């Protein structure tokens, strides 16, 4: 990360998730701990019957599509639709308009693990994908489509770091702003339903017929989901008086375990935590709440939970994957958007698990959630296969 001291603020957010379209629907489900998990269709002979997943409802997709021009409604693939619609919501939220002078110079940084998966999978299967397919499964097209629709003419990129992709993209955006390449960035992450991805998780026995139970002694499976989250980031000098930032991005730390292709490594993850805190200039005791990666897998939650118990004793912890599922490459964006909402609402949403079954000595927020007046600093964790780690630390805007 750059050593510049340019301050970066979140001025707008957008979300699409199994809760529906919009940050409000997302936060509403998180506050209520309302799950929308359903059985997935079997994709191959090795998949467990009744495996659960979570999908963006058709009404939400229709709402997203309705924001686009007619041509884009039929030609854009789903990942582009999700990301672009979230960007439009985030810009509105920030008091900005597509194509205006501020947005025209924006850089676009999106994270995705599976990119335009539906198109590649159709090609492999020998199926024709609706809409234009030439040049479409190149993952860059997600960022390119978003940039074109919002009228951003600056640098655009897609970052791939498995389930840490969105927070890695956030790191790119913050560094580009701090290095002076732009004053505004549109950053986030997205993944849509990918058959290849579901098959892969199934082959690892990581998904199944019982729901995600983060940090519970009864946890067994990850619940895969789809969706996107986008944030508008602006440098301090570009924020106008009529804008009301939701959060300040104090630090985004990225590192790698360099240890195992799929298993989480405590040394690497602990190092990422320390790097994030060092860069934010904070101690663990300063953190008012952590949006954990909390996938509900045995290994991740044990490693992450041990770090919380050892280094963040008493800090409120919550794991939103227990409510909305695991948005894969979009998970970091969901966590970071939720962190912004937590700061704004001074509220930590619950993890929908039995509090008496929590493993390790964590202050896991369950039940009705936790009102947290004066909440000042929030952390959003994202870790992925291949040892990818990315942690964002946000602060209440001063």
């Amino acid at each position, binding site marked *: 990360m750059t050593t510049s001291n340019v301050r970066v603020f979140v001025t707008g957010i957008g979300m699409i998730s199994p809760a529906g379209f919009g940050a409000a629907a997302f936060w509403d489900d998180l506050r209520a701990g309302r799950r929308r998990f359903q059985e997935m269709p079997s994709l191959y002979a090795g998949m467990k019957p009744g495996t659960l997943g979570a999908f963006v409802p058709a009404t939400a997709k229709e709402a997203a599509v309705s924001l686009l021009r007619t041509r884009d409604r039929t030609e854009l693939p789903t990942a582009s639709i999700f990301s672009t619609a979230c960007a439009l919501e985030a810009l509105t939220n920030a008091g900005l308009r597509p194509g205006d002078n501020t947005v025209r110079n924006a850089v676009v940084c999106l994270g995705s693990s599976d990119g335009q998966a539906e198109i590649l999978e159709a090609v492999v299967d020998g199926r024709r994908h609706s809409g234009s397919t030439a040049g479409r499964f190149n993952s860059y097209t997600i960022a390119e489509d978003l940039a074109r629709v919002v009228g951003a003419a600056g640098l655009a990129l897609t970052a791939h770091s498995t389930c840490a992709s969105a927070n890695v993209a956030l790191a790119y955006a913050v560094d*580009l702003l701090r290095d002076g*390449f732009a004053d505004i960035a549109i950053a986030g992450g997205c993944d849509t339903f990918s058959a290849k991805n579901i098959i892969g998780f199934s082959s690892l026995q990581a998904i199944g017929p019982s729901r995600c139970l983060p940090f519970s002694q009864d946890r067994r499976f990850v619940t895969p989901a789809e969706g996107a989250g986008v944030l508008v980031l602006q440098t301090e000098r570009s924020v106008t008086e009529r804008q009301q930032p939701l959060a300040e991005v104090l630090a985004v730390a990225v590192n790698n375990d360099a240890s195992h292709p799929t298993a989480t490594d405590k040394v690497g993850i602990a190092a990422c935590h320390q790097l994030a805190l060092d860069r934010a200039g904070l101690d663990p005791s300063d953190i008012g709440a952590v949006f954990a990666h909390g996938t509900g897998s045995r290994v991740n939650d044990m490693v992450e939970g041990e770090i919380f118990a050892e280094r963040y004793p008493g800090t409120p912890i919550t794991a939103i994957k227990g409510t909305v599922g695991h948005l894969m490459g979009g998970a970091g964006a969901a966590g970071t958007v939720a962190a912004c909402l937590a700061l704004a609402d001074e509220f930590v949403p619950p993890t929908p698990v039995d509090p008496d079954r929590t493993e390790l000595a964590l202050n896991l927020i369950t039940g009705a959630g936790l009102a947290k007046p004066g909440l000042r600093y929030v952390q959003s964790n994202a870790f992925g296969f291949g040892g990818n780690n990315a942690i964002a630390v946000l602060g209440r805007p001063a």
Partner: protein
Amino acid sequence: MFTFGIEHTSLYDYGTKDGRLGDLPPDLLDVIGPSGDKYRDPFTRACLYLVRHPAATTGRGDTIVIGTEYGNTAALAQLQRAAADQGRLLSAQHFPNATSSSAAAFLAINVGATGPNTTLNAARLTPAVALWRALLALASAQSTTSHLLIGDIYAPEASLDDRAAQHRDGVAYGKLCATGNLRARFDFSVKGTASGGGFRIGYDGGQPAREYTERNGAFATMDFLSRAQTLSAGETVVFECFQSTGQRAEVVVTKGRALR
């Protein structure tokens, strides 16, 4: 402005040539190791070969930055087909090799690269953005060495994605270090008008600029890194990347003059 050195450069250009499958390096499995190779795709093999080659020594704490448009597409397709063919017998070893950042993951494990590893796709601007990211890891002191890999080994599906483009397999590698007397300056501003897209290397001393119009940025990147590595004091090399939509990225590298 970034200060850095280039310790090593190499190009992996095995693969398809003029539409025909070319020869692979004879020492490929000796260098990358046979364990798990059945599940690797050609792109991961290429990246491992470049970084693990004896000429390119490695160390713990390094950073891996891979700039690629289609990366591990072959492995993604391979997993999907294997699931259809093998059903319950599908091996769990496919999936770790079949993510969009698998090459970076296995490189990190091999090298012990605990830095801010990343795989990125900025289309024609990829080489410049990836180089910026690699140098940022050095400048922030998170690593003392960054391994930069740029290019593609095109799976058949990737070639179908843009039938009009020239597809030549290749991956360029640069081992960058925090000490050295090269200085890099970046410009990602929007300039120019929409054109065909491509790369240009500009040199000091009246040498004509070299232009590359093919899609794969590996060859232009290799040209640029090789030239930067051999600059004389005070000389400059300029690497320009052009998007067909008008965006451009420029990297200017100058070799510092020796102190008296």
